[in-house]
């Protein structure tokens, strides 16, 4: 009989059970402790709304909220995110209703290719949660770590301002 492939796996168990709070749900997942939060979200939890642009913390694409703060999920280990509240773009839609930011981005054409948008939406959400009526400069500062190559940021800044007006 042909020897079965172990697919490079070590003889010892390499996975650990993680318990994560994602978008208000408790998720248990067996995963390698060396995996980044980005990898755990995308590969183990199937939450592919979170994108990656560099995996080196340089572009802001993979931003998610950890305890309300924007965090680059490519720079955090999944295991470090235990006992925190994680919000991904999938968690922005509540009870079937899109977040005002999502609506404003769609209405103003702020998402072109859309790839950087999940990270930008979450970073903007963190800003608005803390500061409901930010100035244009404060929005620029908050989003300075999120690169977008399509829009020239113009419609993104406008959409954040529009959403700020619409959040009750």
């Amino acid at each position, binding site marked *: 009989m042909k020897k079965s*492939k*172990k*697919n*490079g*796996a070590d003889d010892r168990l390499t996975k650990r059970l993680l318990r994560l709070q994602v978008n208000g749900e408790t998720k248990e997942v067996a995963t390698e402790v060396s995996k980044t939060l980005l990898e755990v979200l*995308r590969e183990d939890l*199937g*939450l*592919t*709304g*979170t*994108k*990656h*642009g*560099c*995996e*080196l913390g*340089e*572009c802001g*694409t993979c931003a998610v909220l950890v305890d309300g703060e924007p965090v680059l999920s490519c720079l955090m280990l999944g295991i470090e995110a235990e006992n925190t509240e994680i919000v*991904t*773009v*999938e968690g*922005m*839609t509540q009870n079937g209703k*899109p977040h005002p*930011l*999502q*609506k404003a*981005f*769609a*209405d*103003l*054409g702020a*998402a*072109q*290719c*859309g*790839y*950087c*948008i*999940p990270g930008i939406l979450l970073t903007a959400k963190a800003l608005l949660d803390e500061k409901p009526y930010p100035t244009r400069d404060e*929005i*620029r*500062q908050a*989003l*300075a*770590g*999120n*690169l*977008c*190559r*399509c*829009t*020239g*940021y*113009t*419609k*993104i*800044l406008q959409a954040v301002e529009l959403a700020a007006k619409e959040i009750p």
Partner: protein
Amino acid sequence: MTRKKTLSVIGKPLRKVDAMAKCAGETVYADDLNLPRTIYAKLLRSPHPHARILGINAARALKLDGVFAVLTGEDLPQKFGIMPSTEDEEALAVDKVRYAGDPVAAVAAASETLAEKALGYIDVEYEVLKPILSIEEALASTEESQRIHTWNRRANVQKAVSLEFGDVEGGFAGSDHIFEGTYFYQGNTHLPMEQYCAVGFYGPDDKLTLWSSTQTPHYLHRALAKVLKLPASRIRVIATPVGGGFGGKSDPFSHEICVAKLSMITRRPVKITLSREETFYVHRGRHPVKMWAKTGVKSDGTIQAMQYKTFLDGGGYSSYGLASVYYTGALQTVTYKVPAYKFEGVRVFTNKPACGPKRGHGTPQPRFAEEIQMDEIAENLDIDPLELRLKQLVEANSVTINGLQISSCGLRECIEKVAERAEWKKKFRKLPFGHGIGFAASAYITGAGLPIYWNNMPHSGVQIKLDRSGGVTIFCGSSDIGQGSDSILVYAIAEEFGIDPADIRVVSADTDLTPVDLGSYSSRGTIMTGNATIQACGKLKPLLLEAASEALEVPADDLEFADGQVRSASLPSRGISFAECVVKAEGKHGTLGATGSYWPPKNPREFKGSGVGPTPAYTFSTAIVELHCDSETGEIKIDKVWIAHDCGKAFNPLLVEGQTEGSVYMALGEALMEEQIFRKNGLHKIPSILEYKSPTTLETPEIETILVETIDPEGPYGAKEAGQGPLLPVVPAVSNAVFDAIGVRIHEIPITPDKILRALEGRLKAVSIPQFEFPAPLKWQPGEGVKVEQKS
């Protein structure tokens, strides 16, 4: 039925059809695909910029537990490339590598980590060769032994061209002033936020499916068939939503071919996602171009003759280079009346990642030279730079000296409007030292007049299916790269049938399901797919009207499609719903569907190289940049950019503005900071986002967009392009504004602080121009202009 005079969908700021999915994180990009039993691929890349491969041994890698297959060059020896006459790429280098990063082997393994590990177990023996890293070195290395490729006629010259139109010698002889200058436009890269990704699956039915983040699924389809030696009929290419293209995802690539081949061997889905570093090596970005420009003018500033020499650093492969070199000479004549024009261009091979098409493809570089030179002419002759241009603009329904047919032209309005909004007259040469304002204008194509490979088939095809529910589905090969090509199809149908865009579905960019569209390049999408869609709707309308006419007892010529109904135009209360009308028409005529096709107008030129430049319609853009330049530190801060763009009819003003703003942003990156640069040993100097500087929200200024609507006769509802043209004037406008601010001319980009300081100290040397003997010029004269009939 007569055409409705008012438009109900076109021109409205509607959401894109995929907007909510993108904002909800639901859009499935290539790397979001997870097929059962997927295994993962990685490419081994050359560490040397130029080397012969003496041997590759993958035995050690293949023995690793979890490694399923390894490919090397001999598994895929068939050469390919986007341009049929310069196919010089190999999926994996066979006997030579031509840049640091050139792929030499591919591995498929159980995990990405394992595939990466396995790369270290592949033994490659190289004979390192001296790399050629500059245009000058390439032109000087004429010995056969110094060749990077063997197929081209002259060593390390990919293509040299020379074209002459009108009496150039006479034009210069009759000029009162001659202006000459040299310029350098540095290379830069697209930097899409989405890295390249592809998934291949060769199924049990002996059919191959390839999902890829590509702008050109049709050309990829052809390349796969050729290299894999499979019948094209058994290959399906699906372009996933592209997470940023800008031209960088328009070639068929090694990684796409390798995952397909690895799946043919393993019979499992094989996925590859390139790292950010690899994305810098794939490149195909803006060519570094050295330029010499000469313009002869009368003392009133009117142009008598213009001459250009361009030298393109092409990198290791041809890619689109054949077109790129012609594009550096094609559009200089499309803004001002130029009665005589000569252009010589050469593209060389160097041992760097291949350059290709980036937003504006080959035209931003000479436009940079032309618009700075116009500013210098104005300065020297003491004429306002805008006045200098206004007195000699090209006109609608005219033909340029190099035979390009201009249909609509809103250039004058673009100049006037941008000047008014920016308060040009109040500011020009009147702002304090360190504060400046600059202007430039440009023209661009709305789709290339010819396909990449010679054929007489349509450039764009659509198929429309009407459903008994009243829903409409459109099938089209175009790939949405964020510009909204899917939405364009929907808006056109909604306009034609008077129905809600929400009742229309799009199936796009799937070679099994959709008629061919050549791809998302050359700003061709809206004009070509839009016209094809209108044509298909036009075929269905008589069937619908006949059924509605019978049901309503209203003559067909009194019926209109509006508000979700087919109704009497004179008595609007008399109507039936669109869905009801479809049911009646299907009962009468059978299953309802139609196709639509689009061919660009015939190219009126007939010389070699004439395929580059013609288009269904030219767009025109003007930019005014206001900036501060610190003469102590050399730092530039852009205060504001005003951009006016003649977009024909704004199909959806939100999307047109978005394309325009994105173009301005990308231009500012090129003007101020972005550069694809290499070390003396040929390695990429900055292959990461942190080091490759691009503008963030902090460096991107306020952008004021002015849409100038000329209704173009060839465009669908009069629409022209918006995705590329507005990039062009911004870069030279920055340089012209720097001159206004601090009185120094910068003829090279990026305009970095060190260049400003050197210029202020008089230490910035003029750009050197290489010596090269161009071929004898091909001489040609145009005929008369032809008036184009309004199509829609």
